[in-house]
């Protein structure tokens, strides 16, 4: 009542388009407001963002506005969808609104550059393509071929981000310890396109997927292990390479190695660890137990759960392309998350996603939390392989 300033003028053509691109997904919404209540943005702002209104506007063929939640805030954590009584694909509707925004060249600053970086440099960070394989210097990795059982797909973040390169190297150590025959694509490794998908440019993504599909078919890629759950997700959901193409996230693969007894016994000095469920492993793909089973296979590791774990996991704030958008410090989900983690008394906050790692690490800095550090599961497992391998200096993680 009195919410809207003036009578709405509906544009039939735009309505058609919105309905078409959302596949009418918003139609089932009966405006209960559960989405608004559970959206994590409500935890970091004085008021929830009005997701309900955004769905209502979509039903009317409008692109938001007038107090509706800003579609660019969405981290695609999926909590709203998980709790929607009618199963409305709210992130899907929001994604479609972003898609339409690209057609109008009405997207936030920085996102056009993101796409250009993927186009010219093959990664969303604008890093030199010739440097993509620098992370593997001295590791003597093999180029993927028919004799390999596994294609290790490092992905753009692990290839270029200095902190995340340690995760990639840790995985190499683990795979070797397990005697896995694996290969990599080296400098020719393409970007999976998840950044493009996250910001909603489906049309450009099609081009990327088509090119990468050709490549995967040419090289006969079957089992592909990714570092990032986002790469895993896009390979699973948006790529149709063939019958044998099987993307797995590294935690799934490590869980297989553990249960198959293919790793030497893992042991570390006593360490209390808590685990952040990445949205793209957990809520998106129901992968909750495998990462935990890997952690629990490390002798000396005590795993404690945070509040809001598994299906109720709190997003780190990095999904939905938010890594390329600015969020004021006090509004970062990660700040809340690290506090919940610290409340468990854990010394290490473990995760299995580059976005989570970056956001939570940033969260620790902003919170001034010195008692805890963030580590990737791969790094913990590598620690557990000591002294079977070259020691990774304990506590030397940033």
């Amino acid at each position: 009542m009195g919410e809207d300033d003036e009578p709405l003028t509906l544009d039939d053509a735009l309505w058609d388009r919105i309905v078409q691109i959302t596949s009418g997904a918003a139609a089932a919404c009966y405006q209960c407001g559960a989405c608004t209540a559970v959206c994590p943005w409500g935890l970091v702002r004085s008021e929830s963002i009005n997701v309900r209104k955004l769905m209502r506007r979509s039903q009317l063929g409008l692109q938001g506005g007038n107090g509706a939640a800003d579609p660019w805030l969405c981290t695609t954590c999926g909590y709203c969808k998980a709790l929607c009584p009618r199963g409305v694909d709210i992130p899907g509707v929001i994604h479609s609104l972003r898609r339409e925004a690209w057609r109008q060249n009405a997207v936030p600053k920085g996102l056009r550059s993101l796409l250009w970086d993927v186009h010219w440099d093959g990664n969303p960070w604008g890093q030199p393509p010739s440097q993509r394989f620098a992370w593997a210097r001295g590791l003597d990795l093999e180029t993927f071929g028919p004799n390999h059982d596994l294609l290790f797909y490092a992905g753009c973040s692990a290839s270029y981000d200095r902190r995340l390169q340690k995760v990639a190297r840790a995985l190499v150590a683990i795979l070797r310890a397990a005697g896995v025959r694996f290969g990599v694509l080296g400098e020719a490794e393409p970007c999976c396109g998840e950044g493009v998908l996250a910001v909603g440019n489906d049309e450009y993504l099609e081009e990327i997927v088509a090119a990468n599909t050709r490549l995967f078919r040419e090289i006969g890629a079957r089992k592909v292990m990714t570092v990032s759950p986002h790469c895993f997700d896009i390979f699973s959901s948006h790529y149709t390479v063939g019958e044998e193409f099987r993307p797995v996230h590294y935690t799934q693969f490590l869980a297989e190695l553990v249960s198959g007894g293919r790793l030497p016994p893992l042991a570390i000095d006593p360490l209390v660890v808590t685990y952040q469920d990445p949205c793209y492993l957990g809520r998106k793909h129901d992968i909750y137990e495998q990462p935990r089973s890997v952690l629990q296979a490390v002798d000396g590791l005590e795993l404690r759960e945070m509040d809001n774990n598994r299906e109720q996991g709190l997003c780190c704030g990095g999904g939905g392309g938010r890594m390329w958008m600015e969020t004021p410090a006090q509004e970062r989900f990660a700040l809340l998350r690290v506090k919940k983690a610290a409340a468990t008394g854990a010394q290490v906050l473990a995760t299995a996603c580059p976005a989570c790692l970056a956001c939570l690490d940033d969260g620790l800095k902003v919170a001034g939390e010195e008692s805890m550090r963030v580590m990737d599961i791969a790094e913990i497992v590598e620690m557990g392989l000591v002294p079977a391998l070259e020691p990774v200096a304990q506590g030397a993680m940033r």
Partner: protein
Amino acid sequence: MNRSLHTIVCLKVVPKPEEVRIDPESLTLDRAHARSEINPSDMNALESALALKDRYGGTISLLAMGPTLFEPFLRVALAMGADCAYLLSDRAFGGADTLATSYTLAAGIRKIGPFDLVLCGEESSDGATGQVPPGIAEWLGVTQVTYATELSLLSGRWWLRARRDFSSGHEIVTTPLPAVVSLRSRCNEPRFMDMDRRAWARTGSVTVWSAQDLDVDPEMIGLSGSATVVAGTQEASKRDRRREALKGSIDERAHALAEIIRPYIDGQRAAAQQF
């Protein structure tokens, strides 16, 4: 005004700077193994043109001088929203310095036809001279605005209003069209390709002109038309960061750092900030 705005955007395709090597035997540039991209500030020039088209309507023609490998890049620019593309391609254009290049591009512009604006990036990432836009303006006998950051047209009259940088600040200038403008690197964020347009752009119009198609004096193009020559080249310090650790006591490290910094300081710079 009845006639619509016609903007010509000059583009150059350049090798990725970090991938260019010097062939150790011939001591010449080896660009063959380098990936290419559209010169970054030319992307800014194109975005400026597209923003003007959004606001004032009209058409955008692309112009480039180079080998046929430039074609797919022109198609990327067409997908961004340009209307047609012209590529000046001929062995005779090869080896040109900025004098011959600006001469040739000016001839291409004349052949394209009447224009209101020629937009270029401030400089190319390879040669980095920034001399071609003023050169084109002089050959065509039109006015120039270099290092511009914002453009608009004054309504009712065909005048350009531009914000441009100069060493100690910026200024707002106006000048009558037609004009040649060079855009400052990073002055805007180039829009991404319109994917609906992408398919059209793949088959859309790219006209290739050779030296014969243009009204040019063969003595003024390519190597023959160049007044400067390269006497020698060598690779500068590694593109990769040196990652050199400073050693010694803290005072020794401070001293080493001061020495590294010294060439970068212009002693008068602080005084110049009084301007």
